[in-house]
């Protein structure tokens, strides 16, 4: 049984984010810390848990992006993936989801994975598109926001609960092969084991040049990125930390919250 986990490298959300000169994406600077998308960590951990509870399961972790994303693929090996795949494409700018999904689909199609896991969304562009597009390109059934899963021992059906808005969980069963987008909180991702860290250090990644994949053009055009307008109603408290604390308490007192 083979599981593919799609992982994305994203800038840490606490990094200082600046817009590039062209105004079309963020500036690559040494101030930006890149790491694995947190939602994908849950997807990877869920695959590792399936492998631990069943025999003969292989996990491939795949990422599409420039050279720097290899670090995230290696991190996936450290966290327990068996094989790491880097689909290399140029550029740090905005990538159309349909191209990323097509790149993964082209790679994955001949390998006939039994399960494909993605995180529910990427923390950087927050589009929630690649997973459902990938499922459709491969003709697979899929389910969103999976918060628990149970694989039948026969391995032809997986039962899932999907977390919806308003405290509702939809209960579905899907025949394999299928794609699940994994919700955060389904598990607690583990820290890498030392043995996996040592293995990952030596292990070669499978590298595919995206130029060889005949990808479709994106169907949308990026007009630009902007900083949000400053809040019109809000006041940012100024002064030393002590002064800010005092100002805030006086405001709360005046509004009779204390």
């Amino acid at each position, binding site marked *: 049984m083979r599981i593919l986990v799609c992982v994305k490298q994203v800038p840490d959300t606490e990094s200082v984010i600046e817009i590039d000169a062209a105004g079309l994406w963020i500036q690559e600077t040494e101030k930006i810390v890149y790491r694995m998308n947190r939602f994908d960590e849950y997807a990877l951990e869920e695959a590792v848990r399936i492998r631990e509870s069943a025999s003969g399961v292989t996990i491939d972790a795949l990422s599409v992006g420039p050279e720097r994303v290899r670090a995230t693929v290696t991190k996936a090996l450290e966290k327990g993936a068996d094989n790491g795949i880097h689909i290399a494409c140029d550029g740090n700018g905005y990538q159309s989801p349909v191209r990323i999904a097509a790149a993964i689909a082209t790679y994955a199609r001949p390998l006939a994975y039994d399960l494909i896991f993605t995180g529910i969304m990427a923390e950087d562009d927050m589009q929630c598109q690649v997973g459902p597009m990938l499922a459709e390109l491969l003709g697979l059934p899929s389910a969103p926001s999976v918060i628990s899963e149970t694989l039948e021992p026969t391995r032809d059906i997986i039962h899932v609960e999907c977390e919806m808005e308003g405290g509702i969980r939809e209960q579905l*069963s899907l025949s394999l092969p299928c794609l699940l987008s994994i919700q955060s909180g389904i598990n607690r991702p583990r820290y890498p084991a030392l043995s996996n860290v040592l293995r990952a250090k030596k292990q070669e990644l499978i590298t595919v040049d995206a130029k060889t994949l005949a990808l479709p053009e994106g169907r949308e055009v990026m007009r630009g990125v902007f900083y*949000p307008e400053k809040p019109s109603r809000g006041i940012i408290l100024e002064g030393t930390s002590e002064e800010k604390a005092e100002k805030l*308490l006086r405001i709360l007192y005046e509004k009779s919250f204390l």
Partner: protein
Amino acid sequence: MNILLIAEVVDNMLEPASNELIAFARRLREDPTTEIAMLVPGQDVRDIGEAIARQGIDVLLIENEHLRYFNPEILLQEIAGAVDRIKPQFVCFLHSTRGCHLAPAVAVLTGSSCITAVEAIREGEALAFRRSLFSGKLLMEVSPQAPRSVVTILPGAFPAADEADSLPVEPGAVSVRQIDVQEKRVFAHGLRRDDSDNGKLDEADIIISAGRGIGSAENLSLIRDVSEILPRSAIGASRPVCDLGWLPYAHQVGTTGKTVSPRLYIACGISGTSQHIAGMRNSRWIVAINRDPQAAIFSIADYGVVEDVTTFLPLLTSTYDKLFGK
């Protein structure tokens, strides 16, 4: 040009935000003669359809026993079929878990552009949609290129017209399609409602919420200390804090947690993703404390404090003791 809206129906109940799709479509069309139709899939949705039609748009009901619960396989097939027949220029879903799972797949099936989590329409020579990036630290504008676009609309961004304020209109036509379809690869069994204790968020006058910036489960004591000085207050949390197991999900504020509107909401170390903001934006007063001056939470705060919560909250408690005594 015409616009096809996809209503979200859960267990034969209309998700009220579906009405925001109508508000969005009326903003989107340049020409008032542009037809707007809403597709309503479900098991028994005639009453829902008639209520929607009274707002002056045509309604296409798709009924099947397997559409009572969320079956993405059947929904996709039926929505793509409707797109083929109606040939709309825009297909619009809510940016909900269901909607943003179906929309990209419909875009692939119908060769359309796909733009998700739309917050605003850019007026100007070229149509563009505005959406957030990086937890709201940045915005992007993106234009569709294909002749047809599938978009998802961020709930709350296009408020529905108040029914009482709108003029009476000629009701739209309601057509019903009873489909004969079997579940093949996806089987929808039903749903479970999580009605666990909500950490008293509903009754609270004041909610003080912890985000990832609190740093550790131990540091939640800092939140509790501040909560002590605020009468009728309860403790909330952003989703990551619950995912990390620092607080139970009963405390979670946001689209997959509780929607709250206390008199005062204090966001501590919360970045302010649209999912969190959707759950607390109607609070009367909002205070945000975050060390990251770019954090999106400041954009909706009445009072912002750019400080690390792990050092500022103890300072707040000790200053309170100094100013107001124990």
